C-alpha cells in the first residue's frame, strides 16, 4: 500500500488532527508486537526531529496505525471526514 500517496491527498489543514488521531491509536494499541522495529525506529527518528506532523511523518504514522489497528484506523479516518482515504484504505485491506 502506498501510504505516502494516501497522505498526499489529505488537506494540510487536517494534518494536526490526523496526527493526534494516529499517534493516539499507536500509543494506546495493545498490539505492540505488530510494530516492526525498523518502523518504530523511523517513527522515533521523525519524532526526535519533530517532523511527525509533516507529510513524511504522517506517512510513517499511517503505516504504523494500519499495522497495529487497521479497523480503528479506517474508523478514525472516516470520523475525520477523510472519506476518500478511508475508502482506499478499506479496499486495500480487503485485498490483503
Amino acid at each position, binding site marked *: 500500500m502506498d501510504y505516502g500517496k494516501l497522505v498526499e491527498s489529505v488537506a494540510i489543514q487536517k494534518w494536526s488532527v490526523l496526527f493526534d488521531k494516529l499517534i493516539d491509536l499507536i*500509543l494506546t494499541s495493545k498490539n505492540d508486537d505488530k510494530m516492526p522495529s525498523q518502523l518504530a525506529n523511523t517513527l522515533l527518528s521523525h519524532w526526535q526531529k519533530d517532523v511527525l506532523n509533516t507529510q513524511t511523518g504522517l506517512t510513517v504514522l499511517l503505516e504504523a496505525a494500519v499495522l497495529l489497528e487497521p479497523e480503528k484506523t479506517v474508523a478514525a479516518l472516516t470520523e475525520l471526514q477523510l472519506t476518500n482515504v478511508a475508502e482506499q484504505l478499506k479496499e486495500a485491506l480487503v485485498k490483503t
Partner: protein
Amino acid sequence: MVKFGIEFVPREPYWKIMYYALQAERGGFSNLWITDHFNNRNVYVTLATAAIYTNRITFGPGVTNPYMVNPVFTAQAIATLNELAPGRVVLGMGAGDKTTLDTVGVEMEKPLTAIQESIDIIRKMINGESVAYQGEVFKAAGAKFLFKPKGKIPVYVGAQGPKMLALAGKIGDGVLINACHPKDVEYAVNCVKEGVSASGKRLDEIDVAAYTSFSVHEDLKKANKAAVRVVASIAAGSPPQILERHGIDVKKAEEIKEAIKANDWTRAFSGVTPEMISAFSVCGTPDLCIERIAELLKSGISQFVVGSPIGPNVREAINLVSEKIIPHFET
C-alpha cells in the same frame, strides 16, 4: 524551583517509552526514571535508548537493587551510560521489593547495610579505584574497571521506612521518597533531615524527590479510574500503621489483598476507596494536582516525580503536566 521527573515502566515497548520521554523532555520535565524489574524489559537497554533519543533530560534507574544485580555491574552499566550521555546520568538505588525478590529466590539480606555497602562500592568503581572490600553483605577483592570512567554520577536512595530514609539523607546525593500524601512526605523528609544533619550537610544540598503514583485528567472520574489499579496494589501492600494514619479500614485493605491473590482484579479495584486514592496517589484534574503538589512542596521536596499510571491517556497526561502544572510552579 521544584523539578519535575517522570517514571516509566519498561513493560511498555521501548518505542512507546521513548516517544513519551521525548515528549516529557520537550514539555519541561528534568528527570526520567526507569523502573527495574526482571519481569519487564531491561532497564539499562531502555536507558541507553533514552541516551540516544533525548538531548538534555537527566535519567537513571528508578530504582535498581543490589540483590538482583551485583554493585560492580551496576557501576559498570551507569559508567557506560555516562559515556553515552555525559552528565545526564543518575543512579537510583533501593532495597528492592520483597515479593519480586522472593519470586527468584533472592533473600533481602540486611537492606540498610546492603544499600550502604553497594553505594560505597559503586562510587569507588566509578571513581576508577581498585575496590578491595570486606563488607557484611558485599565483598570485592581488587575489582577495577579496565576502562577509565568519566565524571560524577549522583546516587539517589529510594526509601520508605524511617531508617532507610535517614540513611538516604546521610549517604545519598538525592532521595526518592516513595510517598504521595503530604503527611507521609512530611514524615519522610523529617527522617531524611536526621540523616542529612548526621553527615553535616544541609537538606538543600541533596535532591529530595517525592516519587508518586500520579494520574491527571480534565475529568476527575477518569483520573481516579486510572489511579485505582495502582492504588489497589499499594493499599494491599501497606502495613496497618500506614493505613491507620490515613483513616483507612485495615479490613478493606485486607480484602483487596485477598482479591489480588485470587487474581480477581475487578473485586480488588472495586474495593479501592476515595481515602485510599487520596493517601496513595496524587490524582485529579490539573488544578487538584497543583493543589496537592503545592502541599507536598511545603515539606521541602525539590523534585516531584510523576509516576505510574500518569493518567488514563499517557500522552494527554504528559501534555497536561507540561502545559498546566509545570508552568504553575515556574512563576
